[in-house]
């Protein structure tokens, strides 16, 4: 049969590509071979059936999930997952070889660091905070060796995005922080040393960390105090988790936190008798004193603008702290806060984000003011917003519920002129870029399990019910978010919040767009 019939002719008949004459000729030949006729008829039937298979509608949330993944990538400072639609070319393979070589070098260096750490685990009791020279920290270091140079901060060196640090405490008194370095050859990140035998970092240094890196703090009043994980810890373990115990002495700053903290959510665990840890006291001591000079900084870049916004919010909070919140928490309630230290190298564009937990700590930077009584003033603008020529970052604060924010974003994404819709009183506004800082109350918190998977999954944001804004949580900023909201008419929702949750939305308008398009792997088309 194979010899008698041309494969292409059979396929052409099945696919309907033959001319009528060719088809008739082929059908005539098939009459001589009933088995072939049966087979061909079955193949034709298969093809017909295959083409009548019903299609299925994609999930309704498909596009919105895409936007969420992009937002998640933005939040984690990681690019979306790479999928290569083309086979690697020769140059690409060469690039991969170089990358593999670099990876091997990193592994060797990491192994050397781990081995060295295991040999002498007391060598790295302190690390250099970001943005500081080693000389500035020299007074705080009890011991030091040449290998500490590995952890020395290089002001112009790029930071690594894969750095993670955490706080752990298994000595039942001190909060201990560890830093993981995926590439010791690049600049390390800083962490705050809090050992009982070392002096706290100078206040100015800590403020400098915040000024240069943008420190965000999220916390709630009474979550159970827990530690999280560490990588490259001095103990030699690559990953470690420890329960942070409670210290017996109550802190003096608890009531300060209470003024800044919303009423506790129902599902949160309450541990009213637990005092602040030494680290929390130290952080409180150094960082809750707002510097009036911070708010007057002139931002030139987006990161600077973000920092300026935080500083501005910090100043606002200082004012707000003078009046008690509507539902103050118990003065003895102790928070667990998540610290995020984000750095950005404007030269290389690389970013790094450190997240660690501080048990029994206090919010040191809160960027929001309590919600305005007249919420949902969407038309709220300022004079600066009406002035497109202003080169300064502009900030608009809107108070609204989560459902109103959802509706606002939905309108924003479907409107032909997003900016005009966003700011109806400034239709001529032509700001090239915009940054959203959505402040919610209370900020989300994560469990230990979430901390382990935070790099993989987005943080779980529980329903918190009604609350008041006291801490900031930037859900998205629109250097990426602008792309999201304009490219994809997602159905932006704030599903993690109760629809009536009061949110404070800060719209930070940045004067200059960053039009640099990063070269990526180009699929052949």
């Amino acid at each position, binding site marked *: 049969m194979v010899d008698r019939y041309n494969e*292409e002719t059979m396929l052409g008949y099945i696919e309907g590509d033959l001319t009528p004459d060719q088809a008739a000729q082929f059908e005539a030949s098939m009459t001589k071979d009933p088995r072939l006729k049966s087979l061909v008829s*079955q193949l034709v039937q*298969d093809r017909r059936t*295959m083409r009548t298979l019903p299609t299925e509608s994609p999930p309704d949330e*498909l*596009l919105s999930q895409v936007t969420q993944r992009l937002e998640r990538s933005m939040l984690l400072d990681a690019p979306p997952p790479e*999928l290569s*639609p083309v086979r690697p070319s020769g140059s690409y393979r060469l690039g991969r070889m170089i990358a593999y070589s670099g990876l091997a070098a990193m592994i060797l260096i990491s192994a050397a660091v781990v081995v060295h750490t295991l040999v002498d685990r007391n060598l790295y009791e302190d690390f250099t905070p970001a943005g500081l020279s080693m000389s500035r920290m020299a007074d705080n270091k009890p011991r030091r060796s040449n290998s500490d140079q590995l952890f020395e901060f290089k002001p112009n060196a790029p930071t690594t995005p894969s750095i993670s640090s955490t706080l752990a405490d298994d000595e039942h008194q001190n909060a201990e922080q560890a830093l993981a370095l995926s590439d010791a050859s690049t600049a390390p990140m800083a962490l705050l040393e809090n050992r009982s035998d070392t002096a706290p970092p100078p206040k100015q240094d800590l403020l400098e960390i915040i000024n240069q890196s943008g420190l965000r703090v999220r916390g709630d009043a009474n979550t159970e105090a827990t530690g999280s994980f560490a990588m490259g810890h001095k103990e030699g373990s690559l990953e470690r988790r420890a329960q942070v115990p409670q210290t017996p002495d109550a802190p003096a700053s608890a009531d300060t936190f209470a003024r800044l903290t919303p009423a506790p959510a129902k599902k949160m665990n309450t541990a009213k008798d637990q005092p602040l840890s030494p680290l929390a006291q130290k952080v409180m001591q150094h960082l809750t004193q707002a510097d009036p000079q911070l708010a007057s900084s002139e931002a030139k870049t987006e990161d600077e603008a973000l920092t300026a916004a935080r500083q501005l919010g910090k100043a606002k909070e200082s004012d707000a702290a003078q009046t008690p919140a509507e539902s103050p928490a118990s003065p003895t309630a102790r928070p667990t806060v998540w610290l995020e230290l984000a750095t950005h190298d404007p030269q290389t564009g690389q970013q790094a984000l450190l997240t660690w937990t501080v048990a029994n700590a206090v919010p040191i930077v809160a960027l929001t003011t309590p919600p305005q009584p007249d919420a949902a003033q969407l038309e709220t603008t300022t004079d600066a917003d009406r002035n497109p020529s202003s080169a300064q970052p502009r900030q608009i604060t809107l108070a609204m519920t989560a459902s109103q924010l959802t509706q606002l974003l939905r309108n924003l994404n479907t409107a032909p002129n997003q900016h005009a819709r966003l700011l109806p009183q400034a239709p001529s506004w032509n700001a090239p870029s915009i940054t959203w800082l959505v402040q919610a109350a209370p900020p989300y918190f994560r469990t230990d399990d979430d901390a382990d998977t935070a790099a993989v999954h987005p943080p779980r944001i529980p329903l918190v019910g009604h609350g008041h804004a006291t801490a900031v949580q930037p859900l998205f900023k629109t250097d990426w978010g602008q792309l999201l909201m304009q490219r994809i008419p997602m159905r932006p929702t704030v599903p993690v919040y109760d629809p009536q949750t009061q949110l404070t939305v800060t719209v930070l308008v940045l004067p200059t767009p960053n039009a640099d398009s990063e070269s*990526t792997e180009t699929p052949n088309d």
Partner: protein
Amino acid sequence: MPQALNPKLVERAVRGDQAALCQLLQTSQHRLYNVVLRMIGHRDDAAEVTQDTLLKIIEHIGDFKGKSDITTWMTRIAMNAAFSHLRKQRLRRTVSLDHAATDPIGRVGRDQLSPLRDQLTDPREPNPAIRVQQEEQQQQLTAALARLQDDLRAIIVLRDIDQMEYQQIAEVMGIPIGTVKSRLFRARLALRREILQKKPPPQNTQNRPKQAVSTPDTPSTSIRRLSNG
């Protein structure tokens, strides 16, 4: 043949018009999802792979040079994502669409595509017997398709589900047209063989001539000979 997209819309999207890109994705997501779904056979995984595809399109739309059709370009990304997913899945576990999964009701063959199969039922169908027969054929075909090799399944999906021309399939798969045709023919034969192999035996075989069962010239043996030839 997949519906051609508006060239102006594509051009605007490539130039960075985000609204155009949004419209492009909206238009294409249904087709891409179904292609991926037929390749993977699992609804949740298909959604995830489709998300990966859309992310990739968003990321690289600016690099689209227009040398090929935009639908072909997007389908190629989707197929590569599906292949990548199948490779990873093969390392983790083995999933077969025709496994004898029994749902709580006790029916056999329920899987992720069962809701899809449920949709096959046309309430306006006048003859229930024909409807059941068609449903059975489609189930067999779907299950057999899932058992095919990835490259053979891809050819059939592109040709029958996405209804692409040979040239488009060649661009998506990166193979010559002649290879597309020969592979398509082999895929159809393999599909038919899978259907025959998994087809349940007749109920009353004792009434049928024995030779009819053991004859070397049944369609299945013809398929084997064709495939080997």
